């Protein structure tokens, strides 16, 4: 397997504050990987280090085989980076800026015009070609940011929160664009929006408090972390007795009381609990009002992981 990104024991301190702690992960060529985590979890720090903007305090990061400290120029030549805040030069027009970016990225002078036209077409920027960046809407700015990342066809795209601050229609557009790009590029993106990551990415790395909490496909994550099924149960009967009886059923991992007569029952792996619970309630002479299986959403998995970390 060819690796595009190799990160080992990556650690970054800002002064005395630990931003990320001993991260280890790899991204294969052609993969789309999403970094997921709450704000301040260390996503942006990790991406800034990968993009060669700042060095790690310790540990190593390699992109396309280039070390982030020793081969910084070669590393930066292999990637296109969209920073979180999409910084652009307000006094330049879109085409002036993209021409500058193309030259700065080492696009040959005679390829320059064609390359700028190509990325403008890819990001639907034709209509604002000669507009000052200062007067662009947020959506267009985001696309300009994406366009400059694409210049020179770098093998790796690093996109920090590519859809933040956009309206729903623009979000759909940008996501579509990223999907189209994923054919030619390896993509590492960050987000704190779960559906986005689960739609776009083949693999999700969940990061919290500067540490990787989980790393898998979105489907696997929700399956693996839900560890069996959950049932929502409503029973009319003596509270404490019901609770202890439910806990006593074979295969039950956890029972949570959710207010009056409502219980959430979590099963051990692959246990079919429904019939067993129904029988129990009926045998004791209580009233079974509701029995409903519940799925874990990625959102809950995420929250689970993040809160587990905190406790």
């Amino acid at each position, binding site marked *: 397997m060819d690796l595009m990104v190799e990160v080992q024991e990556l650690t970054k*301190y*800002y*002064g005395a504050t630990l931003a990320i702690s001993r991260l280890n992960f790899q991204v294969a060529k052609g993969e789309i990987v999403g970094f997921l985590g709450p704000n301040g979890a260390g996503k942006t720090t990790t991406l*800034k280090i990968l*993009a*060669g*903007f*700042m*060095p790690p*305090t310790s540990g190593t990061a390699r992109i396309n085989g280039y070390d982030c*400290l020793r081969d910084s*120029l*070669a590393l*930066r*030549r292999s*990637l296109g*980076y969209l*920073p979180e*805040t999409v*910084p*652009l*030069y*307000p*006094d*330049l027009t879109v085409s*002036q800026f993209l021409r*500058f*970016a193309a*030259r*700065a*990225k*080492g696009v040959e*002078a005679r390829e320059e015009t064609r390359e700028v036209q190509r990325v403008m077409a890819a990001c639907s920027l034709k209509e604002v070609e000669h507009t000052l960046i200062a007067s662009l809407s947020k959506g267009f700015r985001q696309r300009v940011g994406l366009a*400059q990342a694409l210049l020179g066809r770098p093998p790796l795209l690093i996109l920090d929160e590519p859809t933040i601050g956009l309206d729903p229609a623009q979000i759909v557009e940008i996501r579509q664009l990223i999907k189209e790009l994923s054919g030619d590029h390896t993509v590492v993106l960050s987000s704190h929006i779960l559906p986005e990551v689960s739609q776009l990415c083949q693999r999700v790395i969940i990061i919290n408090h500067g540490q990787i909490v989980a790393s898998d496909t979105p489907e696997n994550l929700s399956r693996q972390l839900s560890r069996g099924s959950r049932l929502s149960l409503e029973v009319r009967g003596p509270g404490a007795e019901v609770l202890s009886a439910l806990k006593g059923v074979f295969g039950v991992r956890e029972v949570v009381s959710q207010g009056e007569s409502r219980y959430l029952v979590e099963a051990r792996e692959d246990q079919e609990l429904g019939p067993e619970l129904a029988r129990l309630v009926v045998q004791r002479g209580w009233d079974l009002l509701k029995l409903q299986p519940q799925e874990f959403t990625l959102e809950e998995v995420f929250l689970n992981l993040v809160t587990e970390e905190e406790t």
Partner: protein
Amino acid sequence: MNRMSGVSAVLRKELTIYFATPIFYLMGFFFLLVEGFLFFFVYFTYFQNATFQAAQNPQVAALVNPFQTVFRSFFEDLGFILLLVTPLLTMRLLAEEKRSGTAELLFTYPLADWAVLGGKFLAAFLVYATFVLLTFVYPGIFAFVTRMDWGQLAAGYLGVLFLGSACLALGLFASSLTENQIIAAITGFALLLLFWLIGVPQDLGSSYGNFLAALSLREHLPNLARGVIETKDLVFYLCFTYFFLFLTKRQLESRRWRA
């Protein structure tokens, strides 16, 4: 990849921004206004008086060359006025990149630090040279009324350009220290004034005065202003430029090892 293409990319970008923003035009306007005032009311009047007196009194005529005196003050004053202009040209160059976050783009492009610095410095220098050469209007007017000493003029302009490169390098360094353009400008002004006045102790007979005067931006200008090109003056300005560009490069690199 051509190694110079990075420099030229940054150079072109910076020039585009200079010419796209009003600062350049505003500064050019006021600069020429001040120069025009000095020329018409100070130098020209002085020149008229001096030539008149020389015509009256042959002894004075033998001692004083009005043309040389006038242009000597012209270049020395020009040097000082440009000293006030340069921090305004350089304050934006690095501070604004940091404040607006575009540094994150600039320093993740495959550009070597020296290419970024070189491009920015050259852009500022070209704008500065444009200002300087615009003043050529005034000596040009003189050419109608008197015989010109083009050699002195060339030496004076050379001196002012070299002085400018030193001031711009210092201003660029000031801009690398902060995210705030105003702070960059203030730091630039303060350091430039210091290096302008550092020769004063010599005039007061201070024991280390000679040493300090050798470091002064001002003390190296008079020779050139009166038409004498001395290597030591040009070398001083070049070293000054190199020293501050070097410090700026170190300052940029420090973000890689700091924190």
